[in-house]
């Protein structure tokens, strides 16, 4: 069975419709090819429509007087003489293109701007531009939000208007571990975490924004820096004594004298002497930071956050002690300002707070070193007395670890820093308080 459609032709460029003025053939009539079967009229012209094939007029779809759009099927011809006129209509459409000679393939849409093929890393500027739009940057500036700390849902992890508005909406902006807004030394491209099969009874929940950001950052840091870790044991007995002596005095002045305050002070002093540890890698260059801004990792119930003690080298012990307490307190109550988690140049993390002997911390990009502080506790220690005799003594001890970026920090650099730090802590002058 073969059926051929009769269509309303388009007679003129602007012509959208035509009217069936008269059927010259009735259903069941035999028609020859090119024999007139109906008359139409349009806004421009009247015309007889010749049959597109030889056959029998099987169906009239548009009655006389009715107006239809051009290309509408107005009748159907049965070209198989034996087929019944009343056969269900199964229109044979006008020939559709099936193939064309030498099809020119449309060029592939280019890949989204992403990891560079040449292995180079994007600059901080590039990264910032890729991560945010003018509007997002404007909103960020107005609300003093660090764009890089927001999880982006746009193309390639871009922070969209919705993302930043939601971030601001969510109250005190959390400041998860994330690279500061200035130079970044991260390779472009989102981190992909392999998927794992969940077993029956397992609970699967999506990562929170801060968790996802931390996860990405940790992997990115491992991939970016050549991590090595050195370990030093520090004798805190002297500091413990000073702390005990000055505790009340500090408390009276509104501060809490913690071991961390001593460590921050000593680290700040030594970073001045060892600038390569207070630096960043930017492409093929090293950025030596003028400021010494010491980040201090704080564990919270909902994740990790690193408030920054700005210009720590300019602060007195009292100032440092006050800052530590204040920042940690406000971190826990989500009251940190965005700029208080930005622009760290060195980080100290304190796994010892939970009793850990020591850990091997991951560098907080784009910094080049992080200091891990183990538990500070009394331990037996072999001392050599002035007369050369060895004794076992009860000392307040701690194990320190320094993870540093071996791309720019040689082992000797790291060890010299640690040796100096150890010396300063073990001989902390009481007068410095």
């Amino acid at each position, binding site marked *: 069975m073969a059926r051929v459609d009769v269509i309303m032709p*388009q007679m003129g*460029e*602007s*012509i*959208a*419709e035509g009217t069936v003025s008269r059927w010259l053939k009735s259903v069941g009539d035999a028609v020859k090819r090119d024999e007139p079967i109906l008359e139409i009229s349009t*806004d*421009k012209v009247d015309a007889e429509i010749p049959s597109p094939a030889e056959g029998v007029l099987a169906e009239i779809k548009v009655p006389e007087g009715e107006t239809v759009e051009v290309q509408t099927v107005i009748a159907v011809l049965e070209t198989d003489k034996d087929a019944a006129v009343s056969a269900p209509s199964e229109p044979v459409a006008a020939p559709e*293109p099936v193939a064309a000679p030498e099809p020119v393939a449309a060029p592939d849409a280019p890949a989204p701007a992403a990891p560079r093929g040449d292995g180079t890393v994007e600059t901080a500027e590039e990264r910032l531009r890729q991560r945010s*739009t*003018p*509007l*997002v*940057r*404007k909103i960020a500036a107005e609300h003093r939000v660090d764009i890089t700390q927001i999880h982006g849902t*746009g*193309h390639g992890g*871009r922070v*969209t*208007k919705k993302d930043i508005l939601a971030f601001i909406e969510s109250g005190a902006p959390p400041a998860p571990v994330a690279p500061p807004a200035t130079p970044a030394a991260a390779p472009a491209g989102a981190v992909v975490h392999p998927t794992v099969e969940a077993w029956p009874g397992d609970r699967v929940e999506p990562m929170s924004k801060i968790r996802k950001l931390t996860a990405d950052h940790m992997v990115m840091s491992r991939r970016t820096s050549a991590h090595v870790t050195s370990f030093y044991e520090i004798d805190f007995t002297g500091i413990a004594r000073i702390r005990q002596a000055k505790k009340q005095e500090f408390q009276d002045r509104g501060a809490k004298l913690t071991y961390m305050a001593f460590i921050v002070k000593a680290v700040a002093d030594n970073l001045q002497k060892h600038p390569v540890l207070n630096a960043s890698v930017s492409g093929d260059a090293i950025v030596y930071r003028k400021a010494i801004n010491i980040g201090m990792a704080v564990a919270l119930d909902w994740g990790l956050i690193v408030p920054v003690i700005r210009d720590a080298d300019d602060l007195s012990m009292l100032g440092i002690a006050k800052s530590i307490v204040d920042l940690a307190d406000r971190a826990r109550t989500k009251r940190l300002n965005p700029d208080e988690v930005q622009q760290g140049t060195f980080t100290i993390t304190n796994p010892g707070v939970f009793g850990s002997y020591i850990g091997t911390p991951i560098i907080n990009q784009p910094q080049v070193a992080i200091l891990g502080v183990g538990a500070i506790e009394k331990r037996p220690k072999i001392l050599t007395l002035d007369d050369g005799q060895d004794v076992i003594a009860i000392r307040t001890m701690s194990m320190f670890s320094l993870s540093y970026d071996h791309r720019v920090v040689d082992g000797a650099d790291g060890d010299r820093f640690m040796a100096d730090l150890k010396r300063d802590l073990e001989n902390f002058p009481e007068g410095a308080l």
Partner: protein
Amino acid sequence: MAEVTYLEALRQGLLEEMERDPEVFILGEDVGKYGGAFKVTEGLQARFGEDRVIDTPISEAAIVGAAAGAAHMGMRPVVEMQFMDFIACAYDILTNYVATARYRAGLSTPIVIRGPSGGFVRGGPFHSQNPEAGFFHTPGLKLVCPATVRDAKGLIKAAIRDDDPVIYFEHKYLYRRIKEDLPEDEEILTPLGKARVANEGADLTIVTWSAMVWKALEAAQTIEQEDGATVEVLDLRTLLPMDDEAIVASVRKTNKVLIVHEDTRTGGVAGEITARINEQAFEWLDGPVMRVTAHDTPLPYAPTLEDHVLPQTDDILEQARWLLAY
């Protein structure tokens, strides 16, 4: 109220202006007795006589030049180009003479050059063009591109009353395809330079004009139904003057812009709109300004080829969705 087509609305506008002002007259090829190739001026010669609806030789340069001369003397000529593609034949006199007349010589040249532009009608390379960009670049000309029945009438009337030379790009695909009820007892006059919000939206702005307004509206509707986002469709109505204020207001509202035009891409008007947005609303952008346009080819004849080259609703949808997710 009476339902009229875009084409009838144009005719009404011409008729009303000819009735209002005896200085208004029409000249062009086949515009008189026949009423023009598309019948826009049908009946006007019978109504106003052969002196006010003049059939001319096939001489676009002479038609435009003669209109300019009459305009200098205080008349208000309305020139029909049989197809806007042929305005190229008058390019010299339009750009070198007409556009510069006021600046150079202090001469007023209030002429309207109107005619069918645009594709989607299988007209091939010489009956389908959108030649606005060539004139957009010429200081001294105004460019009008009506998308609706109401604007077809309101803008032709405003164009005729305007004291500058106006090129009025009608879209032949719309001539008999769109209809609208127009009031009979109220004068419709649409000021030049005022864009129209064809659809309110919050998440993305589509800046467009002429027949593309309808495709943009289709895309906006689909996005609203399927994606839950709302798209603002801004119908510019006139390219010169351009309603920067309306564009910037919409950018500040939605922060994302897609410009859609039927003309080809390189050197098209979308480039200028993009530049203006950059200059005036950069900090309000939450994504790059993107374009959906025709491909950079002459317009081919075969339906398959024409449909490929011209921007379609699906192209707008695709680009809009990409921008929404940006």
